[in-house]
Every structure is written in structure tokens, then in C-alpha cells.
């Protein structure tokens, strides 16, 4: 049964107030086209989560879609900071839970394992822990087998996990190449999963090397086939990040006004095709093509 749907139909699975686990990591494999669509649809009141945030989170927060943030870090790497994320946190314009990367991964893992919590030894003694305890999402307990202190971090169950994949089949089996950061746990924890794929291949191709499947079809609610849907972030073995556009974005996100201008130009007034034209079209995209030996 095909899971292929147009972008708008996939975006419509994300409702106001949902918790969305974002699939990107800094400047890699962000689900940009889907986030653009959510901004255009004026989704509101989202909780978003990810170990290491990228443009996905910055766009959603800057565009006013987000009420609550669950994260451990995020940036545009050397291109700069996530201005909209950082400002929202500074000003407490959104609620946030800030924790170590492994703590967040373990919170997804607990959700994915049907457990109320996972034990961890990170964050002990640090300033990260008290706010989490106060928020009721972590506890400090002693090991009941007689060992020392432990942190218990509470399960996190996103309504939707969104993830960008290099390849999928029409049934919704999605293959990811390269490192997967918190994708495994976030996908496994989520109630539903939206996959954005660069390429759709025959089912036989996926089943030829199923060791690389990140999302099995029965976990995929919707599959969108949309090349360059992660631009300007990198997709390993497909295309490089777009350094020009990342510089432009890094500059824009420094202030809300510049960000709003950016969103007007590149998001609100576009669809994915016209966005790609606006960022430089085929010539630009061709220049980003990954070298098959290097992977970037």
C-alpha cells in the first residue's frame, strides 16, 4: 500500500498543539520543505524536540509555531547561531526543557520501549538537573541495587517524528545513510512518522539491504517524495549544504525583522519548486551535488 502523499497532505498530519520530533542535526538532513509548509499553514502551539536543533527549529520558532521546546543544543555550526531559538529561550517567549543530548535520546528511548523512564548518570551535579526535576521530567534517585545516585529521565512520546531520508520505497520503508544521531529513538518513540525522501526506489532495492532501513513501512504514516527537500542543509551522499544560503540565513536570523523578511521571501510566498528557483535553481543545486567517493 503506497504511503506516498503530496507535501501538503503530510503537513496536514501535524495539528496545532502537537509534539513534533524534528529529524535534522544542525546543518544536516533537516526537513526544510515540510517545515516551510507548516509555516505557510500557520500551525500553532507546537512542542518541538531534537537533540541538536537546526534550521527546522529556528524557522518554526521564528514563525511563531512553537509553544514548547525540548532540546540539548543547536546551531548553524560555524555559520552562526540559531537566532530565533536562542532569543525565544532568552526571553522565555516559549517554554523549554533543556538537557544533555544523551538525556534527551534516553527520553525518546524510554518512550520507544514503553517504559516510564530511563536511568542515566549524565547531568548529576550540574545546573541542568534542577529545572528538569522542578518540571517533573527528571528525578534523582539512588540505585536500588546499592550503587550511587542516578538520574531518571522521563519518557518522551512525540505525536509525530519527521525525518529526511536519502531513499524510500513507495510502501514507506525509508533508508538513511550516514550517522543517524537521535533518529532511531525519536522515530521509534513517536506515534506517527512522516518521511521525506530524496528518491523513491523499488521495494526490491530496499529489501536488498534491509540493514540500512531506518523506518519500516508500518511505522510510516506518510511519505513525501521531494528532491532537495533538505536544502540548504546537507544530505550525505546526495548533496552538500549550501554555504551561501546558510550565510544568508545566519544573517537573517539575527533579528526578528530580518527573519520575517527571509520568511516572506523564501517561505510564505513560495512552494518547494519556487523556493529552489529562488535559492539559485538548477545551477546552484548542481553545484552542491555530492562526490560519490567523498559522500559530500
Amino acid at each position, binding site marked *: 500500500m503506497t504511503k506516498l502523499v503530496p507535501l501538503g497532505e503530510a503537513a496536514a498530519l501535524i495539528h496545532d498543539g502537537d509534539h513534533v520530533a524534528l529529524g535534522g*542535526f*544542525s*546543518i*544536516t538532513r533537516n526537513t526544510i520543505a515540510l517545515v516551510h509548509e507548516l509555516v505557510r499553514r500557520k500551525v500553532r502551539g507546537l512542542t518541538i524536540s531534537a*537533540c*541538536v*536543533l*537546526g534550521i527546522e527549529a529556528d524557522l518554526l520558532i521564528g514563525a511563531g509555531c512553537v509553544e514548547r521546546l525540548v*532540546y*540539548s*543544543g*543547536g*546551531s548553524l*555550526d*560555524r*555559520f552562526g*547561531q*540559531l537566532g530565533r*531559538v*536562542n*532569543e525565544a*529561550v*532568552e526571553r522565555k517567549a516559549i517554554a523549554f526543557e*533543556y538537557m*544533555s*543530548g*544523551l*538525556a534527551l*535520546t*534516553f527520553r525518546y*528511548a524510554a518512550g520507544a520501549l514503553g517504559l516510564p523512564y530511563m536511568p*542515566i*548518570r*549524565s*547531568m*548529576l*551535579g*550540574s*545546573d*541542568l538537573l534542577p529545572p528538569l526535576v522542578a518540571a517533573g521530567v527528571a528525578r534523582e534517585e539512588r540505585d536500588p541495587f546499592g550503587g*550511587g*545516585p*542516578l538520574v531518571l529521565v522521563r519518557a518522551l512520546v512525540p505525536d509525530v517524528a519527521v525525518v529526511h531520508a536519502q531513499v524510500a520505497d513507495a510502501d514507506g520503508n525509508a533508508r538513511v545513510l*550516514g*550517522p*543517524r*544521531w*537521535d*533518529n*532511531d*529513538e525519536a522515530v521509534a518513540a513517536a506515534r506517527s512518522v512522516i518521511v521525506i525522501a530524496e528518491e523513491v526506489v523499488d521495494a526490491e532495492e530496499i529489501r536488498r539491504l534491509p540493514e540500512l532501513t531506518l523506518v519500516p513501512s508500518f511505522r510510516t504514516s506518510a511519505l513525501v517524495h521531494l528532491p532537495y527537500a533538505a536544502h540548504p*542543509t*546537507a544530505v*550525505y551522499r546526495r548533496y*552538500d*549544504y549550501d554555504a551561501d544560503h546558510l550565510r544568508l540565513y545566519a544573517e537573517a536570523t539575527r533579528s526578528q525583522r530580518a527573519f520575517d523578511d527571509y520568511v516572506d521571501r523564501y517561505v510564505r510566498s513560495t512552494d518547494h519548486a519556487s523556493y529552489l528557483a529562488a535559492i539559485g535553481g538548477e545551477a546552484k543545486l548542481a553545484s552542491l551535488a*555530492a562526490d560519490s567517493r*567523498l*559522500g*559530500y
Partner: protein
Amino acid sequence: MATATAAFTTSELMVVAGARELHDGELAFVGLGIPQVAAALAQRTHAPGLVVLNEIGLADPRPIEFGVGNADPRHWYGASFMGSFSDVMGYLLARGLVDVGFLGALEVDAFGNANATEVRREDGSTRRFGGGGGSNDIASLARSTVVIVRHERRKLVERLEHLTNPGSLDGAGARTRAGLPGDGTRSVLTDKCVFGVDPSSGRLVVRSVHPGITADELRASTGFPIDLAPDLPTTAPPTREELELIREVIDPDRRYTRSF
């Protein structure tokens, strides 16, 4: 930025001092910039078996050019293992197998604790940075940490704005009492000196001063009290071979070693 023996930048000195903090056969997390150049230098000199991990989910990459961060596939090239955050930060780091994390910081205190979260602006408002990511996990769970920070009074502070990454917490033994494994910070590398840690107090002590830096300059630019031994050694300058490796092989574009 030059000494009598050879011309080198402060960054190059820091790279060399950083490389000496990394030992052969160690498993290490290394931050972007100088730590990364230091690791590459160590691998090409005394530590060919140094294994670099990347929290994004990979091990032992052999990059042939520097990228912009952990998420840049340039830093993934040639990895022997690719998996998930939990493979690396769980099954290696939390398992207790990681020898050292070489991390940047916004602020460091006298106990080698580090802030990777936020600082206070002069107007009293908070300036938030991206967040520590996996750095708390590394500082909490690795056998030791090396912290790199710019040597300024507002960055080497008595009290951190946010204790993100534990060093010795509030003194010797405090990590163990808190439930943390490992020794915490084993050194702090700045553009003026190298701090070690006094095991009896858990406090930072100046281990060597960079060439040309005076004791007064050091005291004035450090926000917590420091003792300076009268016979304090000078940080050993780069050798000619080290400089050649840095300039011709590791960082020919001088992205990270031109100036600090």
C-alpha cells in the same frame, strides 16, 4: 606572537599544547577548531592510535579537509563505524570507554567546571547560546576532560552563569559524591597558559605559561585567584616538524591556526 626560536601563532602553540594532552590509543571527543587540529597533529606524531569519536554517531573518521562542525559530512569521511548518538554517547561514552573529551567553553571556573549554555550581557540580560548538546554527557562520563577557553577575566570566573559541564564540581571528591565517574577536567588550555588540576583540592593550577606572558598579565586576566610558582615552566613551543605538519598537511588553509 613570535619567539626567539621560531615564528608561530598563539593558535599553533595551543594546537601543540593540546596535542600533548592527547595520548596514543585514547578514545577522544574533540571539539571543532583547535581541538580538532590538535587531534590531527597528535595522530600524525606521538598518537597514531588516537581514535576520534563524533557524537552525531560515528567513530574514527579520516577527514581529508576541515568542515564547519560535527554535522558536516567532511568530518565523517572514512569513518569505520556509523550509527547513532546512543551508540557513541551510550555504548562507548556512558560505558566508560572514553578517555578524554576536548571541549570548548563559554566560561570556566576555578574547579574546571564549564558553562556551555548562556552568559550575562553587560545590561544584565541573558545571552543564550545553542546549548551544550552532548558536552555535559562527555564531561560527566568521560575519564577526563580538557577544556579550551579564551583567557579573559570574564571567561575564567569565580562563579559560572550556568554549570553545564562538571569538572571537579566544588572540590576533590565532589564528583564521586555526586555519582559521577571519571576525574573531570584534567587541564584547561587557554591562549595564555595551561592549567592542570591539583588533585588534593580539585582547583586549577597553572602548569605552564605561554612564551611572553607575564605573571601579572595572567593574574589580571583570570577571574579567580591563582597561585603562580616562582619557577613556573614556559609552555614548550612547537617544533619545526609540528609547524610543518600543521601548516602543510593538517590546516593548509589556516582556518584554525592563523590567529586565536
